């Protein structure tokens, strides 16, 4: 087969539907990565316009441009859009687009999940846009502190838009994070052991893990606050045993890691670009990996430093002050590794490099002001002034926007297959750089003079007028610069001349595919023997196109790729992907219906929407699998592999593991909230505890454990005698008993709107009930699959997935029951 025929054949198998119809049914990571990026930049524009409105209002004293209400919507939506709808999705888009190419494979682990995540993001973001257009956007500041955002102080729908829209968007972040973890760990070219992974993959892995553990506390907080607003469960109301500090804890448990979730991918871009621009290899690869991991963990120990002014005991403050100073170390290690890399190489001044220098300069200043803010007494001074806002932009714009601009200019030739010819980008950089520093140096300055953040107007006597005017004019200069980048990119994408492969002479594998890359990325998969696979081997691209790698022989109309052992990178299984489908967008729409029904209080629709999601999920998984054993498959180069469905630890199993990590964080945060309210909130202990019942405790716990054990029996029965059904039926019964116990528990909980204790129990019980029902649904599904012949001793993957969920049920059911009954026994 010639390279051209192979290309035609693979294209026919992998292509999305032509034209705009393809947007709705594509599951291809290149398509979806681009859609993510375009949407994210659209939101960057919206957030930028809001920033311009803010600066226009603050340019002069006594400005009558916007009233207090509109101004509050401006800054809240600016912050919210930039953090949730621009920064995080930009990371997701970049990672989704690039990673399979960098890792030398054909797609991400769960193509349909990529699409589902994208549509959740698009729909959730649109909800917030609608709110903005109709002037009913959230206005409580981007961290939404109650009681300001509680039912008493903001009765309108504004806050609900935030809580519901952002939670919807976070589903997409969780989906992307699960997918990226599994893809990076399992979906790599053969031979790519952990130490040969491109550095960007390490950063993306760490970031994805942080999303899985950082977002659940915020999701929980949003759920609790929405429950308080909609049904009066008093989690944050001091007179009924709640505490608004709980929100601050949950928010910053997410919020501080969020800063690093934004920074780490940018650092990954920097670590990728610098060695290429300096014509050398990255200095201290292992050090960088270790410090990215260290940074990720340390950042979770910092949340309280945003609450220094809330009257937390001194010792608590000291913990977090100490931890805050410690993060400087791994950050410093990375910065020195970058400088060292530049030092040892011969840096060339291309456009991406300009933005990297913009990053260095800005980020270092941001770090210095950050140390100032981390010192507790200074924070009491500067708290809530424009100094803080200015600092935060040095970190966020310096640490994210500059590196991302560098990344755009670096990868643009890959995406478009073209060459830049105007020098627009350099001018744009100059405007952005000068405009940025003008804007925010001035804001540091008025901040020190005492201008508070989030004020919509100020008196002429304060003497802040001139400085604010400088800041506003500079911000318009920056906006012009950013608009020029946009024009530059558009010109590039549509009219520039075609360029050759690998213009920067980079060593990572994404440059070994055609540019623009075909839907299947690589006609055959490489065998990787070094970190810069493409450096010493310029002929690699041609050999891959000629089918000399793995899976170079497209026989049937299957989308094939393979997975590898996590540590060594030896190929272990072959994967067959599902094809184009509209199921993801449909499921995202029904998920949206669920959120919408809560937003506009159409509660009869809520259970229907949930049932719809469950039904679609069943269709989703039912379409996979086969009714006969396929046996070993030829993967090329003398390697035969089993199909992933004929293993114990299939991709779906790994996906469940990571999803459960996020889920367990959610549950852990709930237990934390329970303990926190108990020990800190006023109005505890509550008047009456749930009447404890040994019977309920015993039956519920035993049933949940039984279901986990019975699932194991089912797996053994399947393996030895091809008879999974008795075990499955047993497990299903036990799960249903668990569900009934929790339903009874819920019926006995004291009225949840009376005290935060009862409210917490109500949520805890509902969570467990919900998981019992999910496990029940999965077991019923497994039974149906077994009866229809979709399973066999070899085709066992689905049972192992269900087993994970019954195990999880056993753990959380036991813990929930203990948390519910023990206080009553002790009292």
């Amino acid at each position, binding site marked *: 087969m010639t390279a051209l025929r192979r290309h035609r054949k693979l294209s026919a198998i992998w292509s999305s539907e032509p034209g705009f119809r393809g947007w709705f049914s594509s599951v291809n990571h290149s398509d979806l990565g681009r859609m993510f990026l375009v949407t994210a930049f659209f939101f960057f524009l919206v957030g930028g316009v809001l920033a311009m409105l803010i600066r226009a209002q603050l340019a002069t004293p006594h400005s009558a441009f916007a009233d207090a209400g509109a101004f509050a919507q401006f800054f809240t939506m600016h912050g919210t859009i930039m953090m949730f709808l621009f920064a995080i999705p930009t990371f997701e888009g970049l990672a989704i687009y690039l990673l399979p190419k960098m890792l030398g494979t054909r797609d991400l682990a769960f193509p349909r999940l990529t699409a589902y995540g994208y549509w959740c993001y698009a729909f959730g973001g649109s909800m917030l846009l609608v709110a903005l257009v109709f002037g009913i956007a959230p206005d409580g500041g981007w961290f939404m502190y109650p009681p300001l955002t509680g039912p008493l102080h903001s009765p309108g729908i504004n806050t609900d838009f935030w809580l519901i829209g952002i939670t919807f968007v976070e589903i997409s972040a969780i989906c992307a994070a699960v997918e990226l973890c599994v893809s990076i*760990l399992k979906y790599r070219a053969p031979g790519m*052991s*952990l*130490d040969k992974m491109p550095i960007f993959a390490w950063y993306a892995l760490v970031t994805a893990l942080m999303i899985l553990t950082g977002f659940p506390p915020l999701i929980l907080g949003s759920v609790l606050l929405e429950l308080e607003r909609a049904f009066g469960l008093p989690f944050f109301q001091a007179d009924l045993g709640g505490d608004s500090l709980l929100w601050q804890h949950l928010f910053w448990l997410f919020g501080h890691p969020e800063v690093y979730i934004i920074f780490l991918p940018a650092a990954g871009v920097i670590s990728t670009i610098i060695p290429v621009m300096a014509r050398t290899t990255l200095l201290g690869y*292992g*050090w960088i*990996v*270790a410090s990215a*991991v*260290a940074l*990720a*963990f*340390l950042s*979770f*120990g910092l949340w*309280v430093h945003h609450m220094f002014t809330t*009257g*937390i*005991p*001194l*010792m*608590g*403050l*000291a*913990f977090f002050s*100490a*931890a805050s100073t*410690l993060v400087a170390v*791994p950050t410093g290690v990375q910065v020195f590794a970058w400088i060292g890399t530049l030092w040892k190489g011969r840096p060339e001044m291309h456009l991406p490099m300009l933005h990297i220098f913009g990053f260095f300069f800005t980020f270092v200043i941001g770090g210095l002001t950050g140390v100032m803010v981390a010192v*507790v007494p200074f924070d009491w001074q500067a708290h809530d002034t424009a100094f803080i806002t200015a600092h935060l932009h040095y970190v966020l714009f310096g640490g994210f926007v500059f590196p991302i601009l560098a990344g755009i200019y670096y990868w643009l030739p890959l995406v478009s297959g073209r060459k830049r010819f105007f020098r627009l980008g350099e001018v744009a950089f100059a405007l952005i750089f000068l405009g940025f520093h003008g804007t925010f140096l001035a804001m540091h300055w008025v901040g020190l003079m005492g201008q508070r953040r989030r004020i919509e107007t100020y008196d002429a006597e304060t003497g802040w007028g001139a400085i604010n005017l400088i800041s506003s004019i500079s911000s318009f200069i920056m906006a012009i610069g950013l608009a020029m980048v946009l024009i530059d990119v558009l010109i590039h994408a549509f009219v520039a001349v075609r360029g050759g492969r690998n213009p920067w002479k980079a060593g990572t594998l994404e440059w070994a595919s055609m540019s623009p890359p075909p839907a299947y990325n690589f006609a055959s998969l490489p065998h990787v023997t070094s970190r810069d696979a493409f450096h010493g081997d310029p002929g690699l691209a041609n050999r891959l196109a000629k089918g000399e790698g793995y899976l170079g022989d497209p026989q049937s109309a299957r989308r094939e790729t393979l997975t590898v052992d*996590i*540590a*060594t990178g030896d190929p272990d299984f072959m994967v067959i992907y599902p094809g184009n489908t509209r199921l993801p967008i449909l499921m995202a729409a029904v998920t949206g219906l669920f959120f919408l029904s809560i937003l506009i209080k159409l509660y009869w629709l809520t259970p229907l929407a949930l049932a719809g999601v469950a039904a679609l999920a069943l269709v989703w998984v039912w379409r996979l699998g086969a009714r006969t054993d396929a046996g070993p498959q030829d993967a090329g180069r003398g390697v035969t592999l089993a199909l992933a469905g004929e293993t114990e630890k299939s991709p779906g199993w790994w996906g469940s593991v990571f999803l459960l990590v996020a889920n367990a964080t959610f549950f852990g945060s709930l237990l934390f909230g329970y*303990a*926190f309210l108990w*020990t*800190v909130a006023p109005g505890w202990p509550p008047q009456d505890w749930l009447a404890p019942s040994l019977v309920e405790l015993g039956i519920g716990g035993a049933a949940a454990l039984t279901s986990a054990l019975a699932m194991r029996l089912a797996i053994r029965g399947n393996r030895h005698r091809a008879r999974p059904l008795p075990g499955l039926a047993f497990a299903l019964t036990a799960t249903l008993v668990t569900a009934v116990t929790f339903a009874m528990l819920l019926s006995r909980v004291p009225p949840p709107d009376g005290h935060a204790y009862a409210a917490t129990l109500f949520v805890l019980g509902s969570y467990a009930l919900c998981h019992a029902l999910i496990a029940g649904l999965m077991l019923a599904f497994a039974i149906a699959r077994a009866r229809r012949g979709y399973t066999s001793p070899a085709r066992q993957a689905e049972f192992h997935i269900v087993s994970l969920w019954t195990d999880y049920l056993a753990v959380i059911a036991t813990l929930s029951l203990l948390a519910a009954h023990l206080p009553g026994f002790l009292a």
Partner: protein
Amino acid sequence: MKDVLRILLAPLLWLASFSATYGLHGIGCALGWPEIALWGASVFRVALLTAWLVAILIQVAILIVLHSDRFRAASAFTQWASLATAWVGLVAVLWTVYPVAVITACGGNG
């Protein structure tokens, strides 16, 4: 996965002990432990110092175990990276939990 866990283990345990100590501090304050004397200090101080000590011992144990022939990683890179993060864990425990030794118990900051 074992190799990834090896790299993540020490900082993970740091996070756990850090949060646990902070939680213990909250519980101690709520239950009035600083007022109960024990061995020339208060129950509060003794409990927190013990927690710190345990946290340090855990980190030291990880370091030793990672060095041992039985548990060392197969690849040089993973071995190196896991030792590096193990040191991070130890330093982080020493540095971020040391306030239990020096700062007054439950006083607010006004």
